[in-house]
């Protein structure tokens, strides 16, 4: 089969690989029809995530058709069209039975701090991902769900992570009626977080980024007030000024490990790999939120340490909520929102690439060319 493979930092290509096989009785093999590149895939692409092996296939956002099932699978049959949450999870461990699917303890030998994630290095369990013609899906009776007939394929792909994570990020903000919510980052997750903040009753939603195309999208798609941090000498002072010098009630970090805004922090993390991630956005969140406020972190960071300003967080009495998203837990309510028209996920899709052009797709997304916000990978021979 054809699959995207990692060859080293900033280098990927399509190779012929062996089709995955059933390795556990509750496995399924899914023939991928649509996948996406996530902003967090760029951390792998840039060589920031430890134990990213040559030959690894990325891709934790994908939908497809069930091609084969293991002997104990009862919930799926060959031919079913499924969306697969980015988390691999068992459903039965201490964490899964409490709804913490992203923290499953039974699927990742390589790290106890991380659950299982498709195509996200061996630090996340060593599962090849969905930017390929076929993918192994463990716990087929637990993770995947049938794609409803009325749901667009690209909307379904976005349900598997970006939309679920944006919605989750807004929930982690514990938003109350008429709260002022700041979203750092106008990528897909930030846009969905901003949109979701309104659903939770925000009184004001402010989005910060440095890319004008994305800020325009934040205004039109997410009805947000926007600021370009490059145009302001100190974005924290701006945030204070526009919130009566108190700070926002909630700040959502939807940027993560490769935040710009401080060259030293960016270079030491993204280029030299001396930090688990650039803490610029997280520090802006800590300093920009009001005392007693809430910081929600859904941007992805690596496992190594980062220079985070915990002193300010302590002194301000902040609540910092964070996790990888238990995507499937969001789906019932999210499907209601999509069906009601409150959320239209594929409005953020700007580019579509065939799998064969995976090198160009990663480069364009990494360098943010052409106003790219969300690239979809169309797999050859897709139904």
């Amino acid at each position, binding site marked *: 089969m054809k699959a995207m493979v990692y060859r080293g930092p900033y280098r990927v290509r399509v190779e012929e690989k062996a089709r995955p096989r059933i390795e556990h009785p509750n496995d399924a093999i899914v023939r991928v029809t649509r996948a996406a590149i996530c902003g967090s895939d760029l951390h792998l692409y840039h060589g920031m995530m430890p134990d990213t092996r040559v030959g690894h296939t990325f891709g934790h956002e994908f939908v497809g058709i069930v091609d084969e099932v293991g002997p104990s699978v009862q919930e799926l049959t060959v031919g079913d069209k499924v969306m697969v949450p980015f988390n691999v999870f068992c*459903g039965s461990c201490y964490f899964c039975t409490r709804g913490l699917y992203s923290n499953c303890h039974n699927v990742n030998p390589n790290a106890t701090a991380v659950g299982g994630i498709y195509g996200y290095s061996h630090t996340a369990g060593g599962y090849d991902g969905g930017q390929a013609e076929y993918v192994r899906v463990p716990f087929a009776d637990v993770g995947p769900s049938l794609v409803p007939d009325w749901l667009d394929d690209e909307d379904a792909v976005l349900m598997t992570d970006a939309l679920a994570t944006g919605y989750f990020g807004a929930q982690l903000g514990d938003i109350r009626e008429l709260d002022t919510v700041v979203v750092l980052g106008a990528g897909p997750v930030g846009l969905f977080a901003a949109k979701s903040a309104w659903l939770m009753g925000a009184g004001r939603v402010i989005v910060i980024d440095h890319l004008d195309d994305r800020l325009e999208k934040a205004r039109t798609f997410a009805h947000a007030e926007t600021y370009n941090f490059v145009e302001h000498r100190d974005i924290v002072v701006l945030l204070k000024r526009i919130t009566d010098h108190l700070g926002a009630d909630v700040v959502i970090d939807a940027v993560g490990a490769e935040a710009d805004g401080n060259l030293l922090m960016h270079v030491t993390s993204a280029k030299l790999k001396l930090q688990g991630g650039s803490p610029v956005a997280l520090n802006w969140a800590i300093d920009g939120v009001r005392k007693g406020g809430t910081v929600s972190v859904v941007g992805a960071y*690596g496992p190594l340490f980062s220079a985070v300003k915990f002193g300010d967080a302590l002194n301000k009495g902040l609540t910092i909520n964070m996790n990888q998203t238990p995507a499937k837990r969001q789906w019932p309510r999210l499907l209601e929102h999509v069906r009601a028209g409150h959320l239209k996920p594929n409005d953020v899709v700007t580019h579509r690439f065939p799998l064969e052009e995976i090198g160009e797709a990663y480069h364009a997304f990494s360098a943010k060319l052409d106003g790219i916000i969300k690239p979809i990978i169309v797999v050859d021979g897709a139904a």
Partner: protein
Amino acid sequence: MSDHQVEGVPEYTYTPDKAPPAETSEQLRARIPGWGVDLDPADRPQVPRERRDLDLPGVRWRFPERQPELQPRERSIEHGTLPPVYGTAQPLHGLSGTIRRLAYRRYSEARAAHWLLLMAADRVEARGAVLRSLATLRPDDPVTETGIVAELEHHGWRSRIGRGRADAGHHALDPLVVGGSWALGGAATFVVLRRAARARRR
């Protein structure tokens, strides 16, 4: 200035109340599709954070059947046992495998040495893969693999110049990340070979 305001003190910063919202809930509900439909925390799937009442009908086990361990699988020493299900992609091999094995066997996830060894193994493996590919019918091709042609097809210049982007400056470092170590390695090899050749001539 309102009756209770003290001269020189902003009305809402150092006083008990926040400024009234620019828009009321009714105005926002009329303007924003779906405004407030999840206002009640009971409608939010993450509330409360830990729930025992979530429905996963496909779970029919207390502990999942174990995946056969066809070859020894590295694991964090913070795990008490090998978890029952895991990825089998790209098993350990060669020098990078030795380094990774050391990282997993000796150091917990709490130790920087664990992660730094894994990062070092990643670099060793990537360079070895390039060298090994030279002996195959499909050597690594930096042009297609870096996707650099996207600069032409997707308006690399126009996407950056005059856009005030914070990241445009450090994009210039990317070629160094990709090729810098090769250039240094090549230069070092050249120096060593030249010295060897001179010593032989003497």
